[in-house]
């Protein structure tokens, strides 16, 4: 499936990782969306999702393609950003033991904070600012947000860490809403970008979503 975005759409950084999963969720939310591989593809977007993947790989590719500078400029001109998992690591002001990349939101993250793949897990939790019902959450080799600075609101706190937070222009989640049937965080981000989307403030569970839904957007020969 070809994703398209007119002016006012949301982009998904298309260098590596969970790109198609986010495009599929944005389609379900009803906002126009497109993959962003080149700097010119940022034009006209109101929001950009930096997906999960491997943060070292993403950081190298962002630099190679000049997208780091272009995204920073677009952010200065009002582009809203959402980082999931590796994306959150890249946006954090401090990354324990590593050099921060964008450093745009005042949070401290700890990479691979749960351990190996055997420690990846699902759970449900209530994030009242996002939805009035509990939302399914998927954590894959996830980081933890261990501290937030001034101007950053905590959206979801679990056990000894913060799982979701935001400031006025950036949303960060250490889990993967795009790997679950819940559209709640995608609706929330679309509204943060100033878009009007259908659906209330429920968990937004899409009965038509399956774990293979992303394949509609994968490259077919």
């Amino acid at each position: 499936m070809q994703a398209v975005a007119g002016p006012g759409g949301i982009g998904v950084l298309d260098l590596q990782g969970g790109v198609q999963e986010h495009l599929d969720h944005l389609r379900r939310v009803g906002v126009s969306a497109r993959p962003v591989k080149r700097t010119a593809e940022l034009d006209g977007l109101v929001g950009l999702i930096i997906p999960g993947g491997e943060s070292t790989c993403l950081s190298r590719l962002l630099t190679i393609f000049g997208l780091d500078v272009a995204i920073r400029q677009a952010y200065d001109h009002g582009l809203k950003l959402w980082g999931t998992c590796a994306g959150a690591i890249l946006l954090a002001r401090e990354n324990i033991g590593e050099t921060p990349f964008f450093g745009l939101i005042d949070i401290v993250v700890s990479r691979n904070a749960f351990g190996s793949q055997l420690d990846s897990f699902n759970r449900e939790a209530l994030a009242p600012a996002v939805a009035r019902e509990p939302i399914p959450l998927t954590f894959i080799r996830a980081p933890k947000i261990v501290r937030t600075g001034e101007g950053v609101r905590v959206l979801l706190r679990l056990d000894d860490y913060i799982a979701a937070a935001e400031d006025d222009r950036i949303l960060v989640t250490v889990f993967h809403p795009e790997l679950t049937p819940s559209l709640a965080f995608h609706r929330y981000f679309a509204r943060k970008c100033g878009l009007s989307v259908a659906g209330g403030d429920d968990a937004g569970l899409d009965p038509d979503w399956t774990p293979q839904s992303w394949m509609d957007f994968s490259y077919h020969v």
Partner: protein
Amino acid sequence: MAENRYLLNAQLAQMLKGGVIMDVVNVEQAQIAQEAGAVAVMALERVPADIRKQGGVARMSDPGLIKAIKAAVTIPVMAKARIGHFVEAQILQALKIDYIDESEVLTPADEECHIDKTRFEIPFVCGARNLGEALRRIAEGAAMIRTKGEAGTGNVVEAVRHMRTMNREIRQLAALPTEEIISFAKVNGIPYELALEVKKLGRLPVVNFAAGGIATPADAALMMQLGCDGVFVGSGIFKSSDPASRARAIVKATACFNDPEQLLEVSMDLGDPMPGLDVATMASEQRLAGRGW
């Protein structure tokens, strides 16, 4: 394995899409791979080109080596177990690596049975030459598939053959009326329910990477244009004359696989690739892809 654990394992593979997984034999190589932008490393004692040259029985690597590599990087670490050697897999699971490759590059421990991967919590990736082989591995619990290719040759021809075969068989299956699927499944040795799922999806139901003989940025982009979700590079990086540059170039080529201008730029001045082997003149016992079924 619980259903949600299998899904989490398939989803980790989704997060590796568009990336390059590199074979490394020591901590220094693992750090070069991570620095170059690898999405994971495959920790092993000998790359396939050396296994091929030295002969003998190739087994799971020393867990001490794998542990040292795991400690040196933040990206996921994979390691190989022999086909059918479920105890090597148990040891790798106890070591808490991120993915096991049940691999034909090692000498098979069982010529009839692959590992029952449903009995493990840890994810497995398995090689396949065609649709039937891929779906049999998925039926056994593999959460990710790769082409077998012909490892350690620096020759992409077999990986291309395997990917084209899978694509052709998927297209054939997708065009069949439902009542003909069971006979297609029988002839090709395909589990019926998975055949139905492939017909519906028009592709494999899990992430599918290229592997076996990839040696240049152009090889990686070729496999991506043939529809692979990402790339494994075994001997191709650390058997070349300038591993760090080649590793960076293959990472970039995999990300911009359908942009010839960019591919031109990344293909220049990389030094010598690994020396290649002609698969066509190779004796059948020298071919690793024939291991497993």
